[in-house]
């Protein structure tokens, strides 16, 4: 159930990170925002109270058990990072290249990362999904989605 020293170390890092967030927020609450008084609480009053809870609880946890559901290796971490990067890339390029092109590229990457091997299938599915979702969101649901400068 309990884990190796490496895992414990990682848990300690997480608890320390949460503690640090609480401390930094507490610093901003006290010195930058102002706590105020009981008659007139300042903008930092409630954040400071919250920080006290956060720092105390994360400081005393040092996290119990790590769930055993996740068995990762470097390949799966790269895959997870790849998916996150693909979504971020699509978000960043959405307004520059338009919804259809961004969706097509995003789907190509995601389908590949999720296990499709045949590139013809990937390209075909991505094309169909890009057009289909554009039809659904733009025409049926009336969402205003960005278009590329060249009109696609």
């Amino acid at each position: 159930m309990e884990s190796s020293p490496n895992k414990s170390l990682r848990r300690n890092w997480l608890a320390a990170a949460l503690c640090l967030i609480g401390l930094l927020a507490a610093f901003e609450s006290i010195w930058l925002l102002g706590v105020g008084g009981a008659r007139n609480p300042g903008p930092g009053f409630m954040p400071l109270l919250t920080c006290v809870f956060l720092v105390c609880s994360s400081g005393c946890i040092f996290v119990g058990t790590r769930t055993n559901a996740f068995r990762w290796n470097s390949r799966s971490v790269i895959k997870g990072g790849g998916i996150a990067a693909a979504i971020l890339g699509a978000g960043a390029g959405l307004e520059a290249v338009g919804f259809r092109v961004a969706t097509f590229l995003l789907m190509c990457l995601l389908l590949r990362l999720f296990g499709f091997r045949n590139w013809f299938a990937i390209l075909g599915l991505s094309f169909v999904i890009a057009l289909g979702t554009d039809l659904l969101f733009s025409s049926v649901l009336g969402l205003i989605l960005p278009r590329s400068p060249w009109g696609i």
Partner: protein
Amino acid sequence: MENLIFGFQVALELRNLLYCFIGVFLGTLVGILPGLGPAATIAILLPTTFVLGPVQAIIMLAGIYYGAMYGGSTTSILVNLPGEASSVVTCFEGYQLAKKGRAGAALFIVAIGSFIAGTFAIIVLSILGPVLSSLVLTFGPGEYFALMFLGLTLVLYLSTASRAKAVVMASLGFLLGMIGLDPVTGVQRFTFGKVTLLEGLAFVPVAMGLFGISEVIANAMEEKKSGVYVERIGRLMPSRSDWVKARWPIARGSLLGFFIGLLPGGGAVVASFLSYALEKRVARDPSEFGHGSIAGLAAPESANNSAAIGAFVPMLTMGIPSNAVIALMLAALLIHGVTPGPMLVDQHPDLFWGVIASMYIGNGILLILNLPLIWVFVQVIRIPYRLLGPLIVLFCVVGAYSLNNNPYDIAIMVAAGLAGIVFRVYGFDPAPLVLSMVIAPMMEMAFRQGLIASRGNLWTFFFRPTAALIWVAIAAVIASPFLHMVFQKRRQ
């Protein structure tokens, strides 16, 4: 009764009936589509109602809202992805049931529970609406603060992880909820000078990231061949024992949901969380929770439907929106030249009673739509995960972007998704974070309003009768584990 008959005459006009059907159908669809909640949909469709009359507009928008409560549970049960925020709790038990091959029974119980709760809430709304709203009118900041504190206290009991971890998550959520402009002084808090953070950290992308994106990425990282989906749906009709287990939770959920729905700031999300917490507390065997408990599934789903209807009371009778969706409907009424409030019943009886009667009809249509169509929705799980995973991501991307037409929300969603994976690995439950993020601004506002109004007298939060009663309940909740320990030791 005469008024209600008049309402039915209005609601049964062919045009109104058509918009009621469109509303509930769209609502179900929106509830099923992850990342496209009722608030976003109503915001999108608001301009299209300008060509309609106020009665048709509100009938359709209301249908979207309570229809989404039905549909939201489907994806929660089948893919562990809440279609909208109030269905987050449904994932806890519904998905566990689905993994056991009982998705069909879970969907059936949810549909029936939703129908019963919805019908109950409409009856109460049409009979006791004005009385209940006058009761809520007596609430001041002290009562609101105490009530939200009770909500936060109860949420710690929701967590499947340890209470200390739940406190960490709730604190973090509270901190995230306070990002933006200070509600009293207008000072920027934790914005790092970013204009996009002035209005606060958007709740929907954070929820989509924590519950949706993190699930999809985690599944991809684990290289699940068949994904998160159940192997077998099981039979649709629940067993006799399921009905026995569900009947009282449905009744409790309906009652609690309606009451929470009445409260400004309450709404379907809080109702579903509180209802789940209540069932967990009253359960004979709480260990069932988190492993596919029928009570834990039926109660919150009933509560969120009941709350969705209950939320109309403050708007129709007082002109106060109780949540974002109702606020959008209020805006729609104002655009149509109708001012909601105490005079609405006299000045626009067709609207007031027509909308209420349309809810009876809409609730019936939803039952017909959802039960036979369960088989259609069930087909979703037959799609291979390598195809469905990317599609879920795409819906989330579009959902996040469409909130403000800002790619920045997509970045927030991805960041929340990555944080969600870390939380999963170390056994942190994200539910308290999400709930406290919603409650934080309202709770702070009530707290500071109370202090300013009472010139810094903290007793203002305790000495009003209703507030005092709520604090007694809070004390009981906090003391219950210790009392439980004491009783157990005495028994031994």
